[in-house]
């Protein structure tokens, strides 16, 4: 087991491992997206209060969930590279940042587009919205810090510390709707709860979309990681061989 992990930690092996995994995430993403979009936009009924405007949820909630999930993946990889100095985990953490930033941006933008007609405002400085905005700055800060250093190892150390410190924001985002008075509503979907606050006809397409977003993230993460490995290892023989092979 330990041997398998150390083997994977070498960038060359990790590159090929990512390549093997890629189709197993890319194709399901396409299928799940098509099913989820059709189900959510066409099949699911309109809401009794919000009518068709609630359909924004099929983008907003998966994007918001992913913004937290990607951060946890990023922080875990960053911690691993800080502790074991594994290059593969540095690559994964770096590849997470732009994807997480994109999800966070989507969650904020679609939330704003829903908030205008429903709440009556594009933006409100409430705890949920503000902490999610801080998350966007954390991702952008990570990316800026990463590009600020010439040396990859120094950059990895600096960004890892930022990523780990930023983890405090994650529970703040999650519990903000309970800890403070927020305009944002409480959680609709709760795990381990038999009776959901959302009707099944609307909940199932949301689950399909959430799964689609997860496999999409895995797909893009693998692609980005492979690119960063090629870049880092451009001087090695195996990359030259790989180029000729393609």
């Amino acid at each position, binding site marked *: 087991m330990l041997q398998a992990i150390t083997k994977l930690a070498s960038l060359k092996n990790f590159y090929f491992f990512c390549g093997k995994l890629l189709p197993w995430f890319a194709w399901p993403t396409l299928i799940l997206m098509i099913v989820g979009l059709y189900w959510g936009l066409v099949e699911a009924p309109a809401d*009794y*209060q*919000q009518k068709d405007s609630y359909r924004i949820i099929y983008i907003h909630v998966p994007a918001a969930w992913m913004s937290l999930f990607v951060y946890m993946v990023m922080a875990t990889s960053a911690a691993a590279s800080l502790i074991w100095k594994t290059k593969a985990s540095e690559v994964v953490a770096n590849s997470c940042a732009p994807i997480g930033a994109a999800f966070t941006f989507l969650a904020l933008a679609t939330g704003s587009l829903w908030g205008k007609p*429903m709440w009556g405002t594009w933006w409100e400085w409430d705890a949920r919205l503000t902490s999610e905005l*801080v998350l966007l700055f954390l991702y952008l800060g990570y990316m800026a810090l990463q590009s600020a250093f010439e040396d990859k190892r120094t950059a990895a150390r600096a960004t890892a510390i930022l990523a780990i410190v930023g983890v405090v924001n994650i529970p703040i985002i999650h519990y903000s709707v309970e800890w403070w008075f927020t305009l944002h*509503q409480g959680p609709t979907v709760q795990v381990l709860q038999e*009776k959901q*606050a959302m009707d099944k*006809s609307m909940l199932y397409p949301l689950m399909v979309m959430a799964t689609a977003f997860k496999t999409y993230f895995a797909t893009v993460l693998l692609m980005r990681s492979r690119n960063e490995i090629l870049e880092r290892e451009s001087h090695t023989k195996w990359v030259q061989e790989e180029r000729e092979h393609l």
Partner: protein
Amino acid sequence: MTPTRKRRLMMVLLIVLGVGTAAALALTAFNKNLMFFFSPSQVAAGEAPLNRSFRVGGMVKDNSVNRDDDGLTVRFIVHDNAKEVTIAYKGILPDLFREGQGIVAQGKLGSDGVFIADEVLAKHDENYMPPEVAAAMKPIGVDKQLKANN
């Protein structure tokens, strides 16, 4: 230090500054929210400031929404199960505004005790369901039904 490195360092400093201001803004905003959100009971007790803008939050009372003769001003009563505040508002109400809904209004308290709002926000609950299901639940009340089931 090379110019590119200097520029990058400046960028990092800017980002750190940005995150810092955002965090500071956030903290003050939360505190403000806590301070500036008054319930109708607090308003009735005279705890709310006069001549200064603040927020009132509560439920819109059933059958209390009326439009003035000018066709622009909407008057409605907000309550917290104990006290009530009458709110007058000129403007477009959010689509979720309806009787029984939780709302937050920003504005000033007039000398006649009527709250003149310049912004009304509707708070949404966590329930999502098709109209037929809502209609079937109506006799008992949607919220109570869901709570009873949980």
